[in-house]
């Protein structure tokens, strides 16, 4: 990162970048890229797609620089863009009929696991962390995002709801459903490994 921008707050970086200051945009990207990448990786489950999603995020950030409301939280703005990029990525690679992340689609998503090996197969071969990581990858996209933002990023549910534009009750239900599935995977792993995990 350009040392000249280390002390510059995000909103000032955005204002400078919007005025055509390339190094300010670079500084903004460098400051947030690890968080964006981490979220994208949690969502996509592999480096290739995580990089694509992170690219999309910062391209969208660049396009929206002049639309950023300076009274808003930069991180909330970024989370929202990350979520949309994840959803767009999922939509592009999903079969027809996949439901976007809306209130109406909540039930459908809650019952639509991703493809992949189940917890039983994973438990035989590996550690509990791998079992749970695998199960997170199989969560429906909405649950996965909410769980990741709460558990990994430490965001409050109200912040997640604000960032994702959802009702807080919806976010609670998504989190509850995600934890319910992870708990089931945990139980299954304990059974199949004889309690070693």
């Amino acid at each position, binding site marked *: 990162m350009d040392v000249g921008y280390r002390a510059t707050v995000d909103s000032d970086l955005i204002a400078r970048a*919007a*005025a*055509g200051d*390339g190094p300010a*945009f*670079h500084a903004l*990207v*460098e400051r947030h*890229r*690890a*968080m964006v*990448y*981490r979220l994208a*990786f949690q969502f996509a489950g592999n*480096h290739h797609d*995580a*990089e694509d999603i*992170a*690219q*999309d995020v*910062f*391209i969208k950030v*660049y*396009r929206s*620089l*002049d639309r950023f409301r300076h009274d808003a939280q930069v991180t909330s703005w970024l989370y929202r863009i990350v979520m949309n990029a994840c959803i*767009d990525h999922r*939509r*592009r690679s999903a079969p027809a009929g996949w439901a976007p992340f809306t209130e109406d689609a909540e039930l459908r998503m809650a019952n639509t696991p991703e493809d992949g090996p189940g917890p039983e197969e994973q438990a035989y071969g590996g*550690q*509990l*962390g*791998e*079992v*749970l*990581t695998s199960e997170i990858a199989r969560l429906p996209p909405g649950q996965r995002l909410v769980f990741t933002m*709460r*558990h*990994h990023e430490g965001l*409050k*549910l109200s912040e997640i709801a604000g960032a994702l534009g959802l009702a807080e009750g919806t976010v*609670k*239900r998504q*989190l*509850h459903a995600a*934890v319910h599935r*992870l*708990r089931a995977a*945990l*139980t299954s792993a304990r059974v199949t490994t004889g309690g070693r*995990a």
Partner: protein
Amino acid sequence: MNACELLDTPDVELYYYDELDPEDGARVAAHLRHCAACRQRLDDLHAIRRALASAPAAEAPPADDWSGFMRRLDEAVGLERPPSGVRTILERHAGQWRARHLVALAALFAIVVTGVIMAARVRSHRPADVVAGGAVTTPPASAHGDSSPDGPDAKSAGAKGERALREVSAEHLERSKLVVLGLAGRDPHETHAADWQFERQLAGTLLPETRLYRLTAQERGVNDVARVMRDLETVLIEASMSDGRDQASLERVQRLIARRGLVSKMQIVASSAGL
């Protein structure tokens, strides 16, 4: 074990994540003291946290190397119109591209002209007369009847010509990919005409070169390049001819891109040229 009143509620998770107000938090804490099932649910959450904490977190591309990421990002946003500023990155890049295009097009033109001249010479001379004087195309088989110029020099010149064509084509595809991905990645339901006006304009500017590359590839029998250029040309025509005001026009472009597997084809051809 009897089902407790919190069984189907998110209260234990909210308690664990410290998301309850003090009153509800105290209520759940009291419940946990006498409900083994909910204590187990709480323990599970601790176990999940411990297990996930031990799993490595991916925060960067492999080898923690962001250079490729930053380079591609710069290229991508260099194609966007910055929100303000007197001279845009795009305009600066466009200037460079025009210069590079001129060089590439001049080279291609020289290749094609030389190829035509050599083919004409082959018609009237014996095969040994076909001598490579630099980048020379392989004349079509029909141009010289049964006696094909298959000497080592002619073969070498043909290979050089094809390689040059592949390289300039791959560069063109790299530039075009940004437009194609920009078109493919948009949500038709949330995209207004002004939002993708830039891609439509750029599609129009890429069209003449795409056509030239397709014709050259067809003439030289470089079929994979010809095919991908034909598909790209179709998409660019569709995009540039659209007025962008209806959602269906973007959907049509996206269907074309998907149906023809354009992005994959572009990547394959670009990688075959070593780019």
